[in-house]
């Protein structure tokens, strides 16, 4: 079941993404409404992170396209923010919490300009929102996993975007913090911002999200939570891989080049 949004912030048109010539996401096609908290659900290896990366232009889709605010990604870069998975960087990097959060302002700052007082204030305010004010000068390798996750969140907040894409931002975060952060995300959506969150826990997802995207190598469902979270669709999402799809992937992988590229 795929329910289309009216005047969508994000439109994905028949997108197929391959890694090393193996399609990991087949023909995904949906639209997302603005001002909502949107969850991306699916089993491990369902292509959730790939979906986010493809939207952000970090992986090149082999077919289809993405439109954000009805424009191409390059035109609206500064209005989109991204929270990557914690494991994607080396936390031994010589930087303090504040240094990392200020990085969120670099996009608007432009070449040659240095972050100044204003950027520092923005960063401090963002840290305050995620409850990390006490750790401003802490070296990032000395944080716990959940704290590192919150630093990444603060960095995205410092960017002050309209669309936020977050890849597993709650991995390693304790229940109490998770609840506070969800409150924060809710407040943001009330201000008209759209927040897309890759999430692994279906129970908390039911509590917090307004809209759900369910993936399992292909799009199983997309729509308002109470319409798409049905027993049948959940079984389709979590009930193992599609045999036929895996076979097609295998055929594609065995070609000497990627036949899905145009």
């Amino acid at each position, binding site marked *: 079941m795929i329910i289309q949004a009216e005047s969508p912030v994000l439109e994905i048109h028949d997108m197929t993404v391959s890694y090393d010539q193996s399609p990991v996401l087949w023909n995904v096609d949906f639209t997302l409404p603005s001002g909502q908290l949107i969850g991306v659900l699916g089993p491990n290896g369902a292509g959730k992170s790939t979906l986010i990366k493809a939207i952000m232009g970090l992986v090149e889709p082999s077919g289809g396209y993405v439109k954000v605010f009805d424009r191409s990604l390059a035109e609206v870069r500064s209005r989109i923010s991204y929270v990557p998975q914690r494991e994607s960087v080396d936390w031994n990097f010589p930087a303090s919490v504040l240094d*990392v959060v200020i990085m969120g302002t670099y996009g608007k700052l432009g070449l040659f300009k240095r972050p100044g007082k204003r950027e520092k204030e923005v960063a401090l305010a963002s840290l305050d929102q995620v409850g990390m004010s006490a750790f401003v000068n802490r070296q990032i390798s000395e944080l716990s996993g959940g704290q590192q996750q919150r630093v990444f969140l603060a960095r995205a907040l410092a960017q002050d975007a309209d669309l936020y894409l977050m890849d597993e931002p709650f991995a390693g975060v304790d229940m109490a913090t998770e609840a506070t952060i969800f409150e924060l995300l809710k407040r943001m959506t009330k201000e008209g911002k759209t927040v897309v969150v890759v999430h692994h826990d279906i129970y908390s997802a039911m509590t917090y999200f307004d809209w759900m995207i369910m993936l399992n190598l292909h799009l199983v469902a997309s729509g308002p939570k109470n319409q798409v979270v049905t027993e049948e669709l959940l079984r389709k999402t979590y009930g193992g891989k599609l045999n036929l799809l895996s076979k097609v992937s295998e055929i594609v992988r065995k070609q000497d080049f990627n036949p899905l590229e145009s």
Partner: protein
Amino acid sequence: MSFDQNAFLIILTGSLIAISCGLLGVFMMLRKMSMTGDAISHAVLPGIVIGFFVAGSQRGIEVIIGAGLLGILATLIIDWLRQKARVQLDASIGITFTLLFAIGIILINMLANNVDLDQECVLYGEIAYIPIDLWITGSGAVLGPRITYLALLNFTLVAGFIYFFFKELTLTSFDESFGSVIGIPSKGINLALMSMVSYTTVSSFEAVGAILVVALLVVPPATAFLWTKNMMPLIKLTTVLGIAISILGYYLAYLFDSSIAGMMVSVAGVLFLLSALIKGRSRKSAGTSIANI
């Protein structure tokens, strides 16, 4: 001890080179590209030799251009092997630099009769000759030691590059994908850094030799990284280490009657291993204390 002008010049030049290499090396290390730096510094050799042949001397701009081109060519070959030929990264680096370096050695041997290019000088450098290698203008005016000027120019460009692109370099080193997401030209920054590394390699080869440049590129940043937790202290300590290595290297080489460049690297190595010994152990205890929080 009276002021020894020659010693001062050598140490000054050595420090300038060590700092230029170290500053670039910090970013190479943080990008986990130290071995690419090593590869570039080997790979520029044929460019140096060809430039030398075209210009007829080591002083020509052709040498710098030749080496710069080869440095960029090396990164392009590595990329081509990886993406088009699908060879794994470590092997791509290994194949590329050994081939280019081998070609360089062959060219030196082929042209040995035609040009006055000393294999030893290109490979190991001879910083000791700086005071007598003067820059003389066409009209015969003596302006001072040529290599020191080159090192100063190189240092100015490297420092300027890092000053102006500090935030882009830092961000793309830490989290390249976030960088491209917020619209920072990661590829351009990367190519610029590689070009600076090749240029620095060439500019320094006469003094410390093509092979030993890599030591200055890699070891001071790695040593400083063991002691620091933030970018600014890391950069400052790398700079201080560059100067300390030059001073100690010079006097120890004098004492043992050995190659100055080689001694600088040996000093760097001793400092590195000592730091690893001290910080390596304390890291373990720090690790457990973090786990206990």
